[in-house]
């Protein structure tokens, strides 16, 4: 076959293809039925052009058409809303169960660090302001002091809706950062998580030392279970990803390892984000209300049980 004849013969369909691959969705759908067969003929053209050593610019042009055509043929941009209930009922809890060992060790480590720093601060409360900053200490004091004007609301905001927005902005950003920094050989996630554990433990002890025990614990009990599991999931997901760099799973190459692990940890971080939205809602619209402490504690215990039951039992029977 010679190049000139080849070009003459195939020119029409190439022009058609180049026009079609940049078309909008509606125009494209008119041509969709013809598209796969033209695409396959152009693949053949590319192979012919390569074996016959045709002009590099021609091969380049066909190469591009195949690449772009591949994108159009295999793209799937329909949004299927059923993904969301499926994810909640099945995808998220089963992703959590699949990583249960890792998640339990992370939870244990988190609690250990919290207890340790709590004990230290309990012994000598003045180190709280030294560890974190006098500003943070003051902020917390104001927030949990029933006589303060910032009682149960962070200083940055006023009103429940504002608090909701602030918690989403703040908490989910931290969770995402915890996850993302995990890819730095896992260190980032660990640091973030341990810092948060230390902060939580220290804050608890500090509040006890100030005698704000009741207001503080009744505040955090409602959203505590949901929020902490989400942070731990984000950290564990980041750690998993970071470990691929050190030791890829199943003896895969790093490239393939990332492909496998990326799919496995994605539900964890998405679920963590969803949980944090829920936690922000509880924190802004429930925890900040002056309900009797007994009611808040029982709600907190209820949420903890619901969370555990959800992760242990949800979606078990729908495994295909």
């Amino acid at each position, binding site marked *: 076959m010679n190049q*000139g004849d080849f070009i003459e013969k195939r020119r029409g369909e190439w022009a058609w293809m180049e026009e079609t691959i940049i078309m909008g969705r509606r125009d494209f759908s008119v041509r969709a039925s013809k598209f796969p067969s033209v695409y396959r003929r152009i693949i053949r053209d590319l192979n012919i052009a390569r074996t016959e050593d045709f002009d590099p610019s021609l091969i380049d*042009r066909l190469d591009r058409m195949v690449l772009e055509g591949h994108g159009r043929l295999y793209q799937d941009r329909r949004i299927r809303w059923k993904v969301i209930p499926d994810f909640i009922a099945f995808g998220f809890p089963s992703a959590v169960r699949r990583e249960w060992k890792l998640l339990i060790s992370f939870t244990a480590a988190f609690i250990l660090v919290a207890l340790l720093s709590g004990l230290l601060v309990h012994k000598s409360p003045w180190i709280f302001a030294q560890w974190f900053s006098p500003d943070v200490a003051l902020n917390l004091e104001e927030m949990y002091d029933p006589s303060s004007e910032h009682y149960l609301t962070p200083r940055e905001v006023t009103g429940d809706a*504002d608090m909701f927005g602030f918690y989403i902005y703040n908490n989910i*950003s931290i969770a995402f950062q915890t*996850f993302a920094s995990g890819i*730095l050989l896992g260190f*980032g996630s660990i640091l973030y998580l341990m810092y948060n554990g230390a902060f939580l433990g220290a804050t608890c002890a500090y509040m006890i030392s100030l005698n704000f025990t009741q207001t503080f614990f009744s505040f955090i009990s409602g959203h505590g279970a949901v929020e902490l599991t989400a942070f731990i999931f984000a950290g564990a997901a980041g750690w998993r990803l970071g470990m691929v760099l050190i030791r890829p799973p199943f003896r895969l190459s790093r*490239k393939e390892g990332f492909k496998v692990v990326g799919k496995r940890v994605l539900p964890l971080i998405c679920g963590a984000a969803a949980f944090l939205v829920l936690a922000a809602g509880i924190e802004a619209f429930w925890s900040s209300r002056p309900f009797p402490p007994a009611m808040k504690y029982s709600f907190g215990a209820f949420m903890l049980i619901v969370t555990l039951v959800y992760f242990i039992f949800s979606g078990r029977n729908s495994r295909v």
Partner: protein
Amino acid sequence: MDEPETDTRLSVVNPEGVAYSLRPAGFIPRTLAYALDSIIIWIFLAVILALASAAGMDSGNWLIFLIAFAVNWFYFTIWEIFGRGATPGKLLFGLKVVADDGSPVSPGASFTRNLLRFADGFLGLYIIGILCSMFSPGFRRLGDWGASTLVVLVRPNRRLAGRINFPETILPRTSKTPLRGEEKALVLSFLKRCNLFGKDRADEIASRIVPAITSDSKDAANPGEYLIGLGLGLLEKDAGR
């Protein structure tokens, strides 16, 4: 593919069994695209803040927090999902995000690679991302590794697609011994580039090629013109006239 590459292209085999090449983008166009996207984000947030303060800030803070959160973490993802793999910055500089097999980037992968952006920028100025992309085939930053994606150039290479412009005094000719495919490609690419060389350089380069494809010393006397003539001949023959 295993064949050695002389440039930065990556070869990918698609489900139909044909290999095509991806042209991963280096960090200069990507930095430019990122800069443009950052400017768009800043302007957008500034406009939102200005509108909010014009409207009176009493009760709308939560909306601003939500918008800031969404823009910070989802600007790139939303563009990459709904803009065929390109943010406005990437579009302007001819870049596109694809999965590492060349197929369109999936929402999950786009989400992952843009979450990991934070890790690439962990030490500021994207130092980690730049170092990582310098040392990995396909210029992949950590986010690209974690999400199995690539950023590729989508514009055609202008130099290769350029028009041929040759001296008109040279006549087309054919080789006495038929040329192999590789030799043909060599002659054609010489023809394409000879205008860039100038005569002396063209002769110098051609003098290394010509003895390999002809034994006639008359042809070798003026190698540049001989090769151009051969190329023109190939073009004529291939045009089927």
